[in-house]
């Protein structure tokens, strides 16, 4: 059966050149980079080389890159490391209602530890009101944490403008850049961010490796205590092969992004247009334009996400959903709820996220298979041809400013 992967925001295959670069570090070059001997020496240079590759892609100094085990670790480190280091200064964090759980759940934990957290709402397009953000800053504010792009909708937030506000009030600024690095150009010099989190498996590197940009002079309490690795900023023996893979993936992204992004955008736009034309009562979730070129999130009214995905799966199509059934919790996507998407539509939300391996034929195939699937599920649904309307009030309520 034909297999079409359109879930690149969930994870990506490791690029063949990346795997090739990694392989020697499992066998011949297996040493511990902290070791003095040949086995360690061979490896240390590889790590510093990867550090430069990552730094080049995001335009910062290699000394500002700390390798981690994943994006979630980066977000935990950014938030907890800041709260501890700046506890004399204040205890207030500003973030948004649409962050990844790695930020949101960490914030909820920090609230229990005595932090005050402002969760900024978003509008129906999923965008922030920057005046509201500025107004939320108090003299106790130690951190603003706003993701660069949202994983569910692909919405891109105005990081440079938020950075300018943060700079104006001398508040530290962290951005979860997991969904942008390697997909669209990012520049740590232009964006006034102090901390930015990267995850390898979103850009063709393996799972289990990530990095965090820590601007020079940004005081952080260690998150992982122990050995002196990463200049005493992150303990634990280096995931050498993973780090080499992340470096290589950044190097490749640097070279291919310029051509890949417009190509992927064209495919995504074709898919979006095709769905809207072929199927009635479909809602676009997210901002029409300010979006990653690869992401399309739509709700097919009256039918539930997991059953859509299962039907897709039977046709070899891999996508994802904001339905509770696929979220690992009992509520549908908090991002849909924050955008005040009707609760049934939230359960119906379906994300297609494309990558460099997708083709025109993939899009054509989906556009051919999709309409009968939606129709069949709608015919089965008690909500279709029914006037009952649901409201958004049952969503998980995240505390707001």
């Amino acid at each position, binding site marked *: 059966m034909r297999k079409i992967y359109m879930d690149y925001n969930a994870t990506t295959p490791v690029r063949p050149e990346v795997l090739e670069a990694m392989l020697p570090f499992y066998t011949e070059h297996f040493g511990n980079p902290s070791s003095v001997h040949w086995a360690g020496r061979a490896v240390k240079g590889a790590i510093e080389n990867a550090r430069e590759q990552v730094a080049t892609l995001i335009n910062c100094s290699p000394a500002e890159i700390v390798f981690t085990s994943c994006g979630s670790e980066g977000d935990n480190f950014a938030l907890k490391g800041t709260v501890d280091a700046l506890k004399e200064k204040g205890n207030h964090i500003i973030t948004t209602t649409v962050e990844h759980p790695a930020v949101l759940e960490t914030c909820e934990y920090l609230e229990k530890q005595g932090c005050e957290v402002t969760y900024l709402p978003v509008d129906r397009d999923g965008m922030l009101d920057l005046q509201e953000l500025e107004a939320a800053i108090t003299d106790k504010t130690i951190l603003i944490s706003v993701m660069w792009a949202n994983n569910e909708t692909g919405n891109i937030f105005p990081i440079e403008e938020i950075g300018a506000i943060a700079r104006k009030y001398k508040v530290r600024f962290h951005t979860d850049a997991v969904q942008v690095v390697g997909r669209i150009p990012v520049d740590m010099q232009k964006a006034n961010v102090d901390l930015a989190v990267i995850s390898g498996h979103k850009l063709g590197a393996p799972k289990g490796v990530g990095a965090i940009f820590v601007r020079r002079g940004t005081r952080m309490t260690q998150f992982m205590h122990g050995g002196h690795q990463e200049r005493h900023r992150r303990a634990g023996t280096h995931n050498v092969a993973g780090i080499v893979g992340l470096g290589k993936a950044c190097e490749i992204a640097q070279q291919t992004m310029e051509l890949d992004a417009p190509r992927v955008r064209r495919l995504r736009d074709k898919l979006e247009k095709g769905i809207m034309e072929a199927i009635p009562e479909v809602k676009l979730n997210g901002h029409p334009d300010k979006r990653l070129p690869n992401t399309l999130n739509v709700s097919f009214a*009256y*039918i*539930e*996400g*997991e*059953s859509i995905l*299962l*039907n897709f799966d*039977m046709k070899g199509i891999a996508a994802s959903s904001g*339905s*509770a*059934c696929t979220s690992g919790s*009992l*509520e*549908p996507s908090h991002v849909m709820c924050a955008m005040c998407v009707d*609760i*049934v539509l939230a*359960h119906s939300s379906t994300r297609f996220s494309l990558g460099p391996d997708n083709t025109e034929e993939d899009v054509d195939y989906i556009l051919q298979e999709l309409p009968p699937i939606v129709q069949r599920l709608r*015919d*089965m*649904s*008690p*909500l279709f041809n029914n006037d009952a309307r*649901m409201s958004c009030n*049952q*969503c998980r309520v995240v505390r707001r400013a």
Partner: protein
Amino acid sequence: MYTDKVMDHFSNPRNVGEIDDANGVGEVGNASCGDIMKIFLKVEDDIIKDVKFKTFGCGAAIATSSMVTEMAIGKTLDEAWKLSNEAVAEALDGLPSQKMHCSNLAADALHEAIKNYRENKA
């Protein structure tokens, strides 16, 4: 994740639809947890002659709905009343544990439909 039986009932659900002259209708679930099941009964002489369903929900919700209609058809109301959600899950060779409370409500919907029939009759 799902057993072959679940996938069979999910991809080829039995007895989908409504019964225009149903004399018992039951609905359970709510939109917030993402599962709504509606069961339509045609009862004659205390025996379930026909049963159909409509379901908004995940794979488990659709498969249990389909399975419960197959299990109920031809049964007396008293027999059908004894069908439990667990029995439905078992007939499907089991469900993933996280699906056991939210999406395994088809027998409840059947019970509601029987109740509704009895109320209509009373």
